[in-house]
């Protein structure tokens, strides 16, 4: 059995262990600093063999040849012989005790426009290296420490071309902010790997196991491939020492097994002791089954655009039809100007790029334009020649769109291979050898024929956007035909796209007609509209239609942030201090306001309330996190303590009384205490009974305090049943008050079953309480 099959077979049984760092191990055996690790290792086979042996003895199932820096740009003419020697050394050391594999690192060059290297040259370099490794007998490849997904793609494609049946694990390395150096998120990497011919997606090196854990969790959530985790042993200190002990490393890295990783090893700073400790911590177990989230998305180097929520806006303006400035830039090969036109459509979810008559496009312009726009909005390749399409897709650092395919066999055959190779979605037109189908039913029939051809080539229907075709009103076309076709497509469950502005071609007052038609299509569920994104009305219609079509909750529509940067007075200071959770500054600013004669009620209304709203919206948008929210709430509590004694009528501002408790048998109250803090700050009179409270005591407290609502918390399923008991007891005592439930095991469904309101966290508990006590 070859190594790739052996690895897959092992993965079917249990989590697989890789080895750890190579460079530091060789340095311990005399390798001087500053030399090429690969060349030194190839000349010191005994030392290399010792390192491989030590990892096998520590429990590594897979050992990686010392080929991380074995690229053409680093080894030049020595690439093939050095890689062969190092591969053979790993194979010999493995000797049936472990699976030999290759480590492939970045080329050492940056691809244009960031650097000077051509993507194709980088691909060819990886092809030379991986062919040498394959010929030496390697069939398992770990593509490690990449930061740019475009370079990673070059390595993936070259490896797959060199070893069609090999096992490929493709990794990026991530910073503390959860992004690769190029700005790629774990979700974007997962989406990318879903559509490329890789067996595993992963992350290595980064900033230690704690920092890598959320990356691995995110990858596992969105990827159906195996997940590989190779954290380093934290970051080295100024002397180059890694402080994390093997036990600390193993303890933190074990969490990745729980998060869904199938292949686990170590990167910089790890040793055989780290791998031994890791194997001891993780043990022999199958891959954890984690909940997978089905996601379809377009991606660029640094952006993920989800398909299926609101209609996606595809920027239409990078098209020379009717644009003399763009025509001129294309004719002159002025890629910088074209890129600048593209950046003008920054609001686009996807940017469509059409460069006009392709025989007139100067050489190299397609590559330069697509490379220049590889960050920001994902790209739609609106080109027809297969050569140009491939040149464009090569430059994408994510999942783009091909606009478009005709439903004709030969046309599809010439282009579908590019999508299968590079990943991507396709626009499918109801046009075949006989031209455009005229009726909605005929258009659906042609689309289905096209889908069948695509399926024969292994291209799935869920990566196809069917175009109902928008014809110009001025030609006598009936827009109802487009709408009816769209409805038929949606009924069949197809993704859909349309060039909306075509409808008004040749007519005056185009904006109004386009807007009306866009609204009609979007309400019918159009998934992507090719539109004028520079018109502010477009975004408003898209958002509004998403609500009307039931695709987005009205509460989730984004509103522009209310900035009052010019206000630097004490009111502004107080709001800012509350948002930042700065208690001392909040008290100082509030004192200034009180001394100036401002009434406490006004301070609450004009400072506290908007600050709490701001905190909530920042938290919802994941710009701040729970500890920040608590710090803000603490500052608010300090403010209220300052204001209350000065308020003329105590309790005047109370929004009602709510009894809070953790139910009988439950001794955990951190969540309930947070709810109590937030409700108090929001102006509710909170009667907090504490934890482990009998149902009868809760009911009695409602009666005695004439409470308008009850809030109950439970951590485990064994105590959640007490919530229902409280509801029944309230009913029995004719206390018809609404009950809010929450806690680790409590779900929306459970709350609905027992007839209670539900809050997922302390912040949403305030919203729920407001509704309950209205």
């Amino acid at each position: 059995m070859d190594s790739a099959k052996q690895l897959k077979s092992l993965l079917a049984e249990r989590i697989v262990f890789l080895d750890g760092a190579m460079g530091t191990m060789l340095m311990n055996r005399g390798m001087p600093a500053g030399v090429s690790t690969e060349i030194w290792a190839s000349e010191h086979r005994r030392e290399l063999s010792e390192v491989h042996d030590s990892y096998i003895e520590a429990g590594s199932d897979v050992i990686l040849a010392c080929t991380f820096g074995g690229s053409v740009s680093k080894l030049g003419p020595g690439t093939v012989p050095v890689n062969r020697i190092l591969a053979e050394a790993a194979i010999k050391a493995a000797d049936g005790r472990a699976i030999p594999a290759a480590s492939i690192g970045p080329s050492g060059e940056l691809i244009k426009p960031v650097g000077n290297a051509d993507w194709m040259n980088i691909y060819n370099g990886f092809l030379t290296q991986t062919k040498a490794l394959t010929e030496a007998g390697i069939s398992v490849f770990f593509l490690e420490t990449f930061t740019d997904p475009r370079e990673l793609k070059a390595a993936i494609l070259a490896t797959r071309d060199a070893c069609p049946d090999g096992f490929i694990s493709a990794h990026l390395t991530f910073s503390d902010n959860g992004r690769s150096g190029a700005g790629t998120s774990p979700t974007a990497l997962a989406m990318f790997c879903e559509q490329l011919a890789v067996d595993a997606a992963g992350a290595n090196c980064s900033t230690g196991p704690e920092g890598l854990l959320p990356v691995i969790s995110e990858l596992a959530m969105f990827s159906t491939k195996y997940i590989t985790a190779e954290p380093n042993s934290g970051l080295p200190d100024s002397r180059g020492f890694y402080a994390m002990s093997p036990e600390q490393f193993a303890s933190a890295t074990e969490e990745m097994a729980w998060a869904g990783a199938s292949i686990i090893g170590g990167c910089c700073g790890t040793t055989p002791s780290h791998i031994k400790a890791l194997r001891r911590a993780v043990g022999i177990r199958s891959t954890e089954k984690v909940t997978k989230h089905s996601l379809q998305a377009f991606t660029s180097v640094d952006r993920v655009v989800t398909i299926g929520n609101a209609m996606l806006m595809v920027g239409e303006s990078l098209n020379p039809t009717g644009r003399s400035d763009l025509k001129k830039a294309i004719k002159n090969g002025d890629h910088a100007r074209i890129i600048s036109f593209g950046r003008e459509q920054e609001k686009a979810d996807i940017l469509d790029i059409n460069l006009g008559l392709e025989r007139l496009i100067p050489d190299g312009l397609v590559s330069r334009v697509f490379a220049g726009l590889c960050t920001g909005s994902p790209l739609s390749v609106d080109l027809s020649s297969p050569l140009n399409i491939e040149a464009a897709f090569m430059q994408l650092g994510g999942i783009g769109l091909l606009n478009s395919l005709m439903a004709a066999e030969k046309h599809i055959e010439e282009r579908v291979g590019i999508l299968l190779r590079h990943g991507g979605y396709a626009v499918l037109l109801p046009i075949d050898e006989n031209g455009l189908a005229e009726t909605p039913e005929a258009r659906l029939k042609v689309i289905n024929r096209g889908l069948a051809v695509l399926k024969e080539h292994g291209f799935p229907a869920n990566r196809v956007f069917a175009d109902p075709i928008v014809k110009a009103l001025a030609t006598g076309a009936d827009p109802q035909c487009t709408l009816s076709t769209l409805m038929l497509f949606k009924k069949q469950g197809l993704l859909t796209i349309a060039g909306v502005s075509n409808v008004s071609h040749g007519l005056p007052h185009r904006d109004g007609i386009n807007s009306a038609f866009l609204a009609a299509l979007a309400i019918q569920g159009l998934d992507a509209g090719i539109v004028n994104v520079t018109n502010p009305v477009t975004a408003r219609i898209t958002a509004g239609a998403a609500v009307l079509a039931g695709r987005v909750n009205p509460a989730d529509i984004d509103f522009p942030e209310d900035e009052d940067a010019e206000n630097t007075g004490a009111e502004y200071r107080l709001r800012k201090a509350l948002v930042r959770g700065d208690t001392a500054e909040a008290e100082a600013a509030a004192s200034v306001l009180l001394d100036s004669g401002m009434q406490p009620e006004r301070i609450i209304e004009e400072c506290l309330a908007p600050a709490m709203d701001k905190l909530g919206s920042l938290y919802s948008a994941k710009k701040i996190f729970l500890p920040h929210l608590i710090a803000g709430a603490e500052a608010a509590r300090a403010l209220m303590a300052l204001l209350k004694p000065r308020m003329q009528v105590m309790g005047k501002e109370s929004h009602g009384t709510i009894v809070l408790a953790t139910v009988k048998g439950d001794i955990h109250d951190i969540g309930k205490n947070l709810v109590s803090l937030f409700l108090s700050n929001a102006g509710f009179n909170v009667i907090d009974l504490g934890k482990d409270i009998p149902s009868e005591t809760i009911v009695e407290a409602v009666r005695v305090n004439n409470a308008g609502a009850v809030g109950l918390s439970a951590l485990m399923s064994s105590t959640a049943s007490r919530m229902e008991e409280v509801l029944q007891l309230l009913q029995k005592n004719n206390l018809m008050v609404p009950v809010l439930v929450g806690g680790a095991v409590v779900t929306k469904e459970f709350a609905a079953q027992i007839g209670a309101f539900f809050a997922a966290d302390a912040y949403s508990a305030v919203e729920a309480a407001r509704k309950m006590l209205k």
Partner: protein
Amino acid sequence: MNTLPIQVVPALPTLKQVLWRSGCPPHKAGSDIEHSASYALDTLAELSGDAGNGVLLFDTAGRPSFLEGIWPERRITLLIATLGEKVDTLLAGPATLNRFMLDSAASVAVETYMKTLQAAVAEYLNMVPTKRIAPGYGDFPLSAQKEIIKLFPDSGVVCNESFMLTPIKSMTGVTGWIPQNN
């Protein structure tokens, strides 16, 4: 059933682990939140003398089982680890940022403690562990918690009628063991 003579010192989690557990990515924390997490770690360090653990070994080799032949040396351990009562005292009271961070830190700390304990058992037995489970995991009934606690009468950990442990930052674990060469 044997009691293994293994006592380990609880290892503190790292600052980053505490921040992640609190729900906050470390690079977004800011100095106030980091300070609060550091305070939590310092507090836990002072309380380390209050912590305790226990290990029971069950050797089931030779008993009839469908595993006979593929798992000849069948060994199972029950593990218990607790940070002690003092943490509970510090966690009681209205919510504050410091209490919240201490709760997060103590949660990671008791898990880290359990991992350290398991690593020590692995060393002692010279065997490889299976996945460690605990009552409530999969179809392992939560009610088993009570039975496990009964086996550690001197641990200071008690289980209430809802199968929750006191001190709160306590946990149990069940691990199977496989020979190194298997």
